[in-house]
């Protein structure tokens, strides 16, 4: 799968990379540090990602702002977007589902838990029929 991973925290980005390589998953991960970077990445690459993993709390353009732009765009709005966040704020969760998301994953504290959670998410989406651009 082509995954667009939007995350400002370096260690978080390392966590995903490590998880994918450790599990020997054949996924192509494009990283973006915030919403603005992510939009640029989408525009610059004619091939759209299969799924987007999106953090919420980010500088410059946060996850929800990015999500709104994404869902308002005719070609981007079909991209399955999964929130990957530390925020347990129910208001955030409701807002995200209102705008339109494909999942809401809370980052667990322990790395081991993170690994197993991410494996399930990636496996699930890998099993899905995806809108290939």
């Amino acid at each position, binding site marked *: 799968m082509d995954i667009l991973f939007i995350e400002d*925290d370096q260690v978080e980005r390392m966590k995903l990379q490590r998880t994918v390589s450790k599990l020997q998953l054949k996924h192509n991960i494009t990283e973006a540090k915030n919403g603005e970077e992510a939009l640029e990445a989408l525009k610059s690459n004619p091939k759209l990602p299969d799924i987007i993993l999106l953090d919420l709390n980010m500088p410059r353009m946060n996850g929800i702002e990015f999500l709104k732009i994404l869902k308002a765009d005719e070609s981007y709005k079909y991209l399955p977007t999964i929130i990957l966040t530390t925020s347990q704020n129910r208001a955030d969760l409701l807002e995200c589902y209102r705008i339109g998301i494909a999942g809401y994953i809370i980052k667990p504290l322990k790395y081991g838990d993170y690994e197993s959670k991410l494996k399930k998410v990636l496996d699930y989406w890998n099993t899905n029929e995806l809108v290939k651009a």
Partner: protein
Amino acid sequence: MDSKEVQLLKKALERQKKARKQAERILETKSKELYDVTYHLKQANNKLEGLLNVKTSSFEGAFINIIDPYIVMDLEFNVINMNVSAKEFLGYDHTKEDINLSKLVHKDYINYTAESIKVLMEVGILKNYRSKIVLKDGTEKFVEINSSIIYDKSKKPIAAQGIIRDISQENEIKQLLAEQRKQLDIIVQNSPLGIALTINSKIIKANPAFSLLLGYSNTELKSLEIIDLFKNKQDVTSLEFVRTLKSKETDNFSTINNFSKKNGKSILAKTNISTVRDNRGEVEFQVAIIEDITQQKILELQKEELLKDLENSNQELQEYAHIVSHDLKSPLRSISAITSWIKEDYYEMLDDNGKNNLSLLQDKVESMDKLISGILEYSTANSSDLKNTKVDLNKIVEEIKESIYIPKNVEVIIPKSLPTIKADGTKMYQLFQNIIGNAVVHIDKKNGLVEVIFKETEDFWQFSIKDNGVGIAEKYHKKIFEIFQSVGEKERSTGIGLSIVKKIVDRYDGKVWVDSKIGAGTNFHFTLKKLI
């Protein structure tokens, strides 16, 4: 004398005789006539006298039979005659004793009585003489007497007669009415509410508060209608007011309007109109009661603003708590991850001490994570809205049993099915979870038992969570509900759980307390006010 002369004398004598006879005859006739006249007169007189007697006696009869007391007295006030009701009323009987009416007059009325008698003597009649008298049995009565003088044939006054009316009761009622009226007046005059009486919308009377409220004198108000005092006669409430007032369909209604004072300033006032109807149901008066609510409104607005501010800052605080929690948790996740990686990547190179230290680091990170979650929970326990719905507490407890760590030797039971209550489901979950979660991990017995019990009073639900665990020393019974106060042996305890419990219980106007002895187990009790 010659015969001719004799003849002449005889003739003359004859004529004289004749004349005398004639005179006698005339006299006789006249006398007869006179007699007849006298006779007739006498008869007429008799007839008249008879008539007079009849009249007098019927007159007397009328008085004797009259219901009101009737008395005839001489000019020294001694009773000559009195009717039955006079005897009954005064308690005296003139046939048995001498009565002097002057002695009956109450001492307060002696001067007035003397003046009244003077008037009676001069004018011959006295109307509506009112005074207090003392009866034979000592009781005092208010009486009204109408009296007149009786004269003899030569127009000389010989006696007086009078009809007495007992007006004691009438007087009492009058006094009572006057008293009540006075009291009512005091209320109306001193009322802080403006009160006006209107007939056909026109103000006919207003109390001082009304004048003061609007700055118009009583006289000025009399030319006005209530609607004239409104600041804007054409707005919706004013038009509705007039419509309701004129339609006379409701006997009681109220509106809130801006009034214009005489000096041009405006006040906001609540007007209440009550309609007073007469016996036939026709509108007699309308009473307008006006209350100045300008200050009240200002306070209300201030309150609303404060509430809004409070809501906003609550909202901000909650958001702040979430952000802080997120920002603190993120680096923790990183530390945790990196620690794991060191452990994984350099496992072979680390000695036992190094491995142990990394494990300790992970534990500390974990407890800090818990602490942050606890603080977040604590701060949101207070500020978020309560979404009160029907909550089946049996289900809540079951959910808790599934989600928390319960040691194998411990059983959580509900001896008697719990009620379904009106409350916020999430808060109930937090509440029970914190207490049950505490109970299950503090049991050192082989067979641990945690019971969830309830009882119901009129206004409250009372729940008890009873365990057979280690117990809590009495000196900590208050402390455990304070934030960050952990008294357990467990290192993982953050000291936040029970302060969350207290916060939630406070929000439901309840109480939380604990019964416990070291070694004998703990019984947590809390109450929740029933919501309607």
